């Protein structure tokens, strides 16, 4: 039987490249938003424990192997990289968000400086260490920003993928041009 062909958010788009930082498409796998019903956070944490996860504090995330659960707003976290265990449904509102987000990874020495052009947040390591997750803005776009061991993980609306690439690309090229300045 004929099947529908799936397409990734950045399909057909050119990912900008400069020397000092690396931007790449990130495919986090399934994304499920979890909003515990009243008093359900502890139960959610319990269900997630076998995966090495739990319920994240505000602005934090927990990573375990390919799975991570990250703060995604008031009383809400995104479970990424694994399918949501069926037992969660009794304790929380679950919504599939796997296709709603365009995800990127930004790594390298100048990654923080690139994001400082777009994100109105203090991203210095002391304030935004590994394991941080915030909702903020990327330019004028909705942003969920995480810092993992691999670097910055950026989620923005799938429909805005093209604008996100353009604006991050402009910041990358600008930083590269600054780096090339004498003295």
């Amino acid at each position, binding site marked *: *039987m*004929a*099947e*529908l*062909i*799936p*397409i*990734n958010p950045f*399909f*057909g788009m050119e990912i900008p490249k400069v020397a000092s930082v690396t931007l790449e498409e990130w495919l986090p796998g399934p994304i499920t*938003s979890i*909003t515990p*019903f*009243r008093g359900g956070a502890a139960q959610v944490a319990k269900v997630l424990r076998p995966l090495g996860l739990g319920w994240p504090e505000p602005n934090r995330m927990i990573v375990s192997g390919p799975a991570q659960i990250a703060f995604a707003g008031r*009383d*809400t976290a995104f479970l990424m990289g694994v399918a949501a265990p069926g037992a969660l449904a009794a304790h*929380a*509102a679950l*919504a*599939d*968000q*796997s*296709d*709603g*987000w365009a995800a990127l990874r930004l790594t390298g020495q100048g990654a923080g400086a690139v994001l*400082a*052009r777009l*994100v*109105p*947040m*203090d991203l*210095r390591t002391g*304030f935004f260490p590994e394991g941080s997750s915030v909702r903020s803005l990327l*330019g*004028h*776009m909705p942003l969920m920003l995480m810092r993992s061991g691999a670097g910055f993980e950026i989620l923005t*609306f*799938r*429909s*805005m*993928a*093209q*604008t*996100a690439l*353009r*604006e991050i690309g*402009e*910041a990358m*090229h*600008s930083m*590269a*041009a*600054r780096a090339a*300045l004498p003295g």
Partner: protein
Amino acid sequence: MSTPPNAGPVRVAGYGLIDRSEPLRFSFDGVEYGGCRGDTVASALLANGVRLMGRSFKYHRPRGVLTAGAEEPNALVTVIEDGQQTPNVRATVQELFGGLRVASQNRWPSLSLDLMAVNDLAAPFLAAGFYYKTFMWPRAFWEKLYEPLIRRAAGLGRLSGRHDDAPYEKAYAFCDLLVIGAGPAGLMAALAAGRAGADVILAEEDSRMGGRLLSEQPVVGGRPGPEWAETVLAELATMPNIRLMPRTTVTGAYDHGTFGALERVGLHLAETGPLPRECFWRIVAKRAILAAGALERPVAFPDNDRPGVMLASAALAYLNRWGVLAGRRIAVFANNDGARATARALQAAGAEVMLIDSRPNASALEDFRVWRGAQVTGTRGRLGLREITLTDSAGSVTLEVDCLAVSGGWNPTLHLACHMNGRPEWDAALAAFVPRPDMVPGLEAAGAARGLFDTAACLADGLRAAREALADLGLKPAALEAPETADQPYAIEPLWAVPGRGRAWLDLANDVTVKDVTLAAAENFRSVEHMKRYTTQGMAPDQGRNSNVAALAVLADATGRGIPETGTTTFRPPYSPVSIAAMGAGGRAEGFQPQRFMTSHQASVARHAPMIEAGLWYRPSYFPLPGEATWRDACDREVAMVRGSVGVCDVSTLGKIDIQGPDAARFLDFVYTNTFSTLPVGRVRYGLMLREDGHVMDDGTTARLGETHYLMTTTTAAAGQVMRHLDFVRQAHCADWDVALISVTEQWAQFAVAGPKARDLLNTMLDEPLTGDFPFMGCGPLRLMGVEARLFRISFSGELGYEIAVPARYGAALFRDLCARAETFGGGPYGLEALNVLRIEKGFVTHAEIHGRVTAFDIGMARMIAAGKDCIGKAAAARPGLSGAEREQLVGLKPASPQTPVSAGAHLFAAADPAVRKHSQGYVTSACWSPTLGSWLGLGFLRNGRARTGEMVRMVDHLRGAEMLCEVCHPVFHDPEGGKMRG
């Protein structure tokens, strides 16, 4: 304009911090000159003997540089690039690069021969208040004659009229301590804080850090100032916790330790490529130290504005920093001791120097001639200073000089401290305003910005301020001592204005004289704020930095008050001009706002559909086929296609909100006017939502996917507003309800499949075909070509209609497939134009109708406000005046002659009434040609409209000049029984 040999400014050997090994060529007004790396345009022009650099704003008086810094009021030039020009660049700030082209401005035809200088002859008539008094009458002349005339004469410089395509940048920075200014106090503060481990940003307006250490070059720690500064900077550069930001002007102080700053990134380079020209920074600092130094101020004496008259500190800076001696015969005119060192330095560099000290008791012991108790009372030299007249108790003397270096004392650069409305206090000993503590929370002034005018005190004060900041930050200061330096005490006797014949200029940038200020006082503009506005003093690009204190001293004198009682005007951001391009960086063209593209975008573009903006989204307007000449051809075909076979439309832009929880049903009952708790699982209901003021906010359908699980759809336009509203209601009105909301708009690609063949089309793709038991307003999960999908049987067209939703990754493929299959059935894709026609034919409302000023009653849905429950907006909607015969009510409009277009926006009048505003009884909100009914149709609001069915009303479109009679009818034109969509 060059000066004769043996006069005027000249480059001297052995001075300056320029790189003489790198000569550069540049042009000014088309004439080529040479300069060096490290020069500014001003220093390079002076080095070439050019003193005349601009014309004044109002009287077109010839002017040269007054200062050597960013506060320059006279030497504003235009930087010319290929096809682009940037006006009002300060020649004292613009760094030289090879090939730089600059031009003077505000003159015609040339700088040395400016015919507009005729204004100067008319000066007696052009004093302060001239415009207010002159252009009062006749009243009709204002718009047609006076204003165009004034507009043509006004303004400084000209823009190119082209888009500025160059890159600009905005950025954010965060630190423990922001140090503003990198002179002795700032360097000391940054060093102390850096060694203590604080995150420090050191921002300096100049291209090179060091402040007065570079221009005055005092000996610090036994070494020349620049050398000491380089050592400190070299250490700072090695610290990872220090960010050095030269060429960065902190322009404003705002709440919560936020500062605005403008960085000149590429303006000093010839070729920049992707390098931004400027970057506008928002810096958030826990603590800040204002070490911005002090600005020397001039004295107002007759004809004190000629090229060659400059501040003493500028003359010293041009010598020490750029190796330019400002003249061969230099008179120094001062009221303080500080200028003596300048006079000595200028003499040591080879100039013939004389000192005119206004203080009768000043020392006369110098190696040059000193006049005590004397004042400069006049100058001569049309395009450059030739001679001055000085007057003392013995009478007047004329001296031939080519430069007059003036010092009226110093003003601390305290502007940033005043940005949150704090007022400085007057220090009589310094004859200057100084900042008070805590004018801006967390900001502490240090050094000259606090009124400490000698280097040793500045170094010590920078250290003190850093230590205080470190204590606030909980950091331990490292051991550090301020270095030794040779001090000169600062002694001053105030001198603001010298009386005499001729105009004594206070504000050179806006051509305001002492006489203008005294005139303002005489005409009772005695408040300093009134004087400022009446005379325009302090309103030019330099924001009065050179003239403010002197002007209010003159005002104080004229009004018989002291300076403290007179007070200062309010210093507001920005401290220095900020280009709009920098503040709006990235916002040009498509960068203005994010673009949202549907998964079907590429397929629509491939079908040559014109894409139109709907909010941030881009949606296809129509899908033209070969042979179709106009959009109407395509639109009419697409409408007929949906009515006759099947059409496909991407409706993914509609907002989708997932609502779950034990209280989900109760929540929906509260936000919607109608009831959703009674909706069976697997069914969809149309809902109407009110604002708290009782007017309609939005409409849409909500599906019940499970016992405690709903999916709400909103209109495209109000998706964000509704999400925000729901979140507000949840948090503010029902915080204890157990309900979860999240947007899933982006997760699903959703397509309307509408028309008599809609079911047949879907059945070719569904894993299990639909049978007759999927009812109108039904919904449910199913599988489509192996993919989990959601199907809703709803219709915005009035035909048998479905909306099929799949995860967005499949959207592109599904749209292409749906279109191809629809074409097999004789249908195809349809765009927004057809969608609009289809819904007008059915009388469905959009935000053209629910535009924010209509009630449920107005659109005929009053009965949707359920009686048995409360909802947001219900009480407010029941207020008198929001329902009844006086309201304009939704009606359909059919033209008397079907072929005559109905105009959206036209007003409705009773047939016999004149078409003037007071007789307007309503307006047309939507209009279209209906290929189905073979007539133009309109929807609109008409006073008491529902009771007037069958009446002929007059439609008048004053804008397009159209007029005709329309029949008032029910808004549903097509299939009023709804048999087709229920089908």
